[in-house]
C-alpha cells in the first residue's frame, strides 16, 4: 500500500494569525526551536553564575561568607545537572534539532507540530520545577549531579527534604518532554524528507541529531525509572537503593536495597547522554568546517558510520564510570575494552575533520574559529579519556580534578564551542542579519584561551590528588601550597571567561536590530536550509513547492562549476566533474 506523502498536503498548513498563536502557542518548528534555545540559554546562564560562585570559594577560600559548604554543594549539583540536561541536551536537540531537521531535509515542519509544541511547554515546566527548588525550604539538592544514593536522600545532604524531590520530578518531566520531541525528530528524519533526499545525502548535522535522539529515546528510560525508584525511596520509604544503615546515630528503616543498582541505571543513561550531547555537536561542526573551508567533508560515509558506531557502542561502556564502585575484574576488563574501542570511530572523525581542512580554502570566520577551537578542545579531552578508560589509571585519578578537567574539556567546553560555532553560523539564517565580527572574534579568543587557562591546570591538580567536590582542602599534607595559587588562577580565568560571554549576548541582541542584512546564503553553503525562498524562512518553509534534491550536501569547489558551491537543489549538469556524484546518481 502506498501512502500519500503528507508533506505535499499544503492545505493542512494554516498560517497562524495572532501574536499569541504565532509566537507563544506556536506549532512552527522554528519558533519552538527559538523558545527552546532561549529557555536553555537562560538556565545555562544560571548554571554559569553557579560555577562562578563555586570558583570563588575554591580560588579564595574563607573570603566569601555567603558560600558555606551547604551552598557550595548545591552550586556544584545544580551547575552539573543544568549544564548537561537543561542546557546542552535541550539546546542541541530541542533548539537546533527543531530548527534544522525540517529545513535541512526539506520538510515543511515536524510531522506532529502539536506534539512538538507540547514538548517545549513540558520542557519549560521541568525548568520551572527545577528552578523552584532554589526557593524551597532547605534549597536545591546538593547530592552531586549523579545523585548517588544513599546520601542523596538522607539527612545531612543539602536539600534532602525538598530539593531532591523537585530535582527528581523535574527530571521526569524533562524526559516526557524529550520523548515527545524526540519521537517527532526521528519520525521526521525517517519519513518526511523531500524528493531526492536519501539518508546518505543528509548533512551530517542531521545524522548527528538523528542518532543522538535515538540514543536519548533509549537511554532516558533508565533515568526515568531510577528517578521513580528514588522518589519512592524518598517519599514512601521503599528500599530500592537503600541498604540497612545508620544515619546520624540512628538506625533507619531501610533494608536490603542496592545503591550500586542506581549507579548502573544512572550510567546506563549517563554514558549515552555524553553522546546525546556530542553527536549533534560532531554533526554540526562537520558542516561548519566544510562550509568555511570551501571543501567537501572528508570521508562522508565514514563520518556517518562513525556516528552510528559511536551511538551503538555508547550503550555498552557505562560501567567505566564505576571502576571504583567495586566490580568484578572481568567486567572492568570488558568495559575498559569497549571504552577504548570507541576511540576508533572518534579518532576517524577527528582525522576527517583535519583532512577536511587540509588544503581547503579556509575562511577564518567566527564560526570557523569556534569549529577549529572545538577540534583542539575535543582532542585534548578525548586523549585524557584514554587515561581514564583504563581501570588501573582510573583508580588513582578517580574523583580528582583530572576527571573534572577531562569531562569539561570533552563534553562541557567542546559542545559549547560547537554551539557557539553553530549559533554564529546559522544566525544570519535565523535572524536575517549578520552579527558583529569583531565582537565575535573577541568572544572566541576569550573563550578559547580561557578554556585552556581553566582546564589545563586542573589536570595538574588532579595528578596532585586534589579531590573534586570538596568545599575546602584544609591543611592536607599531600597537597602542596602552590596548588592554591593554581586554584586562584583558575578562578580568575573562569570569571573572565564567564564575563566575556556578555560579549556574545550583547552581540546577538544588538545585531538583531543593528546587524547588516545578511541576504540569502551569506556563507555560500550548499545545504537546503539556506535555499529557502525567504530569509528567515516563513511558516511552511518552502513556499508553494518543496525543493528537489539532486546531490549530497558537500559540493564545494567542484571543478568546472560556476561558483565554489553547488546547492543540493541544483540539478546535476553535464559539464561538472564527477566529484559531486558519490554513487548516488539520480535514477
Amino acid at each position, binding site marked *: *500500500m*502506498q*501512502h*500519500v*506523502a*503528507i*508533506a*505535499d*498536503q499544503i492545505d493542512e498548513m494554516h498560517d497562524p494569525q495572532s501574536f499569541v498563536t504565532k509566537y507563544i502557542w506556536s506549532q512552527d518548528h522554528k519558533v519552538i526551536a527559538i523558545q527552546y534555545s532561549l529557555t536553555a540559554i537562560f538556565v545555562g546562564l544560571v548554571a554559569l553564575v553557579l560555577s562562578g560562585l563555586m570558583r570563588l570559594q575554591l580560588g579564595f577560600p574563607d573570603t566569601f561568607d555567603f558560600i558555606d559548604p551547604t551552598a557550595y554543594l548545591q552550586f556544584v549539583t545544580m551547575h552539573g545537572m543544568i549544564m548537561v540536561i537543561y542546557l546542552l541536551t535541550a539546546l542541541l536537540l530541542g533548539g537546533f534539532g527543531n530548527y534544522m531537521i525540517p529545513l535541512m531535509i526539506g520538510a515543511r515542519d515536524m*510531522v*506532529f507540530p502539536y506534539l512538538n509544541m507540547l514538548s517545549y511547554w513540558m520542557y519549560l515546566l521541568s525548568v520551572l520545577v527545577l528552578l523552584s527548588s532554589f526557593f524551597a525550604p532547605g534549597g536545591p539538592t546538593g547530592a552531586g549531579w549523579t545523585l548517588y544514593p544513599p546520601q542523596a536522600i538522607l539527612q545531612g545532604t543539602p536539600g534532602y527534604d525538598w530539593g531532591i524531590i523537585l530535582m527528581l520530578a523535574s527530571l521526569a518531566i524533562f524526559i516526557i518532554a524529550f*520523548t515527545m520531541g*524526540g*519521537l*517527532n525528530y*526521528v*519520525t521526521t528524519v*525517517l*519519513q*518526511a*524528507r*523531500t*524528493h*531526492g*533526499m*536519501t*539518508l*546518505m*545525502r543528509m548533512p551530517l548535522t542531521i545524522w548527528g541529531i538523528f542518532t543522538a535522539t535515538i540514543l536519548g*529515546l*533509549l*537511554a*532516558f*528510560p*533508565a533515568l*526515568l*525509572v*531510577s528517578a*521513580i*525508584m528514588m522518589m*519512592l525511596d524518598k517519599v*514512601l*520509604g*521503599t*528500599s*530500592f537503593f537503600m541498604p*540497612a544503615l545508620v544515619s546520624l546515630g540512628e538506625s533507619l*528503616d531501610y*533494608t*536490603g*536495597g*542496592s545503591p550500586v*543498582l542506581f549507579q*548502573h*541505571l544512572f550510567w*546506563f543513561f549517563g554514558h549515552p547522554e555524553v553522546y546525546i550531547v556530542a553527536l549533534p555537536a560532531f554533526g554540526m561542526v562537520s558542516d561548519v568546517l566544510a562550509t568555511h573551508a570551501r571543501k567537501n567533508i572528508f570521508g562522508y560515509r565514514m563520518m556517518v558510520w562513525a556516528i552510528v558506531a559511536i551511538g551503538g557502542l555508547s550503550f555498552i561502556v557505562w560501567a567505566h564510570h564505576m571502576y571504583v564502585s567495586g566490580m568484578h575484574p572481568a567486567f572492568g576488563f570488558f568495559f575498559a575494552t569497549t571504552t577504548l574501542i570507541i576511540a576508533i570511530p572518534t579518532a576517524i572523525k577527528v582525522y576527517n575533520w583535519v583532512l577536511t581542512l587540509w588544503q581547503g580554502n579556509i575562511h577564518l570566520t567566527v564560526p570557523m574559529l569556534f569549529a577549529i577551537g572545538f577540534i583542539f578542545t575535543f582532542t585534548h579531552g578525548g586523549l585524557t579519556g584514554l587515561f581514564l578508560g583504563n581501570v588501573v589509571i582510573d583508580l588513582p585519578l578517580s574523583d580528582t580534578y583530572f576527571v573534572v578537567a577531562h569531562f569539561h574539556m570533552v563534553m562541557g567546553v567542546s559542545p559549547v564551542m560547537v554551539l557557539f560555532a553553530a549559533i554564529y553560523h546559522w544566525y544570519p539564517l535565523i535572524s536575517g542579519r549578520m552579527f558583529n565580527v569583531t565582537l565575535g572574534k573577541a568572544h572566541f579568543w576569550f573563550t578559547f584561551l580561557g578554556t585552556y587557562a581553566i582546564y589545563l591546570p586542573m589536570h595538574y591538580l588532579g595528578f596532585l590528588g586534589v579531590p573534586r567536590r570538596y568545599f575546602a582542602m584544609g591543611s592536607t599534607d599531600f597537597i602542596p601550597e602552590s596548588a592554591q595559587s593554581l586554584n586562584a588562577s583558575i578562578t580568575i580565568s573562569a570569571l573572565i571567561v564567564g564575563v566575556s560571554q556578555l560579549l556574545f549576548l550583547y552581540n546577538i541582541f544588538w545585531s538583531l536590530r543593528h546587524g547588516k542584512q545578511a541576504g540569502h546564503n551569506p556563507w555560500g553553503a550548499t545545504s537546503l536550509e539556506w535555499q529557502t525562498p525567504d530569509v528567515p524562512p516563513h511558516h511552511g518553509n518552502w513556499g508553494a513547492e518543496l525543493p528537489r*534534491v539532486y546531490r549530497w550536501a558537500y559540493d564545494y569547489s567542484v571543478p568546472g562549476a560556476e561558483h565554489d558551491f553547488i546547492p543540493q537543489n541544483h540539478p546535476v549538469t553535464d559539464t561538472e566533474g564527477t566529484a559531486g556524484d558519490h554513487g548516488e546518481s539520480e*535514477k
Partner: protein
Amino acid sequence: MTLQTDKSTDYTQPGVAGMVSDWSSDRQAFDMPWGKLMMWIFLLSDTFIFSVFLTGYMNVRLSATDSWPLTSEVFALEIAGTHMPLVLIAIMTFILITSSGTMAMAVNYAYRGDKRKTFLLMAATAALGASFVGMQAFEWTKLIVEEGVRPWSNPMGAAQFGSTFFMITGFHGLHVTAGVIYLSIVARKVGRGDYDRKGYVIVEIAGLYWHFVDLVWVFIFAFFYLW
C-alpha cells in the same frame, strides 16, 4: 495528492534487498504513515522503560536480605473451599490476551471498512481492559487491606516484594488504563465516521499500543508471578 512514484523505491522486494531499498530511498524509509512509525518508536522506548523496571526488580530481589515471599501462595484465592494458587492472575492474563484477539479483529474490520463491527470489537477490547484494571484493583485492595502488604514493608518477607509489586503492576496498570481511554476515544470516533477521510490506520496504531501492553504483561507475569 501525489503518490510515491520514485522508481528507486520498490517496497515489494522481499528480504534484505527490500530493506536496503527502503533505507536507501528518498522521502521515507518505511512504507507506513507517520503516526504508525511514531508509535513503533515510542513502543521501543517504552520497552526500555519496562526492561529497566524488570531488571531493577531482579536486582533488588537478589540483593534483598530477607527471604522473598512465595508468590504462588501470596496470590492464591480460596474459591468454594478450594485453595487455588495464582488463580486471579491466571484469569487476568487470560482476559488481557483475549482482548488482544478482539483488538486484532477490530483492526481487520477497520481495514475492511466495517465501522459497526470495528466499533463493537474496540468497545469489547476496552471493556476487557477495564475489567483487567478492575481485577487489579481488587488484587491491590486484598493485598493492602487483608494481607498488610505495603510498599515499604510486608509481613511475608523482603520489603522489596511490595515495593516492586506496586511499582511495576502500578506502572503497567497505568498503561492499561491509558489504553482503555485511548481505545474508547478512537472507538467513538470510528463509530461516528470521523476517519472516513483520513483512513483507519489509527485503529491499527491503537492496536499496536494495546498488543504492546499485553506483551509486557506476559513478561511481568513470567518474571514476577511465576519466578
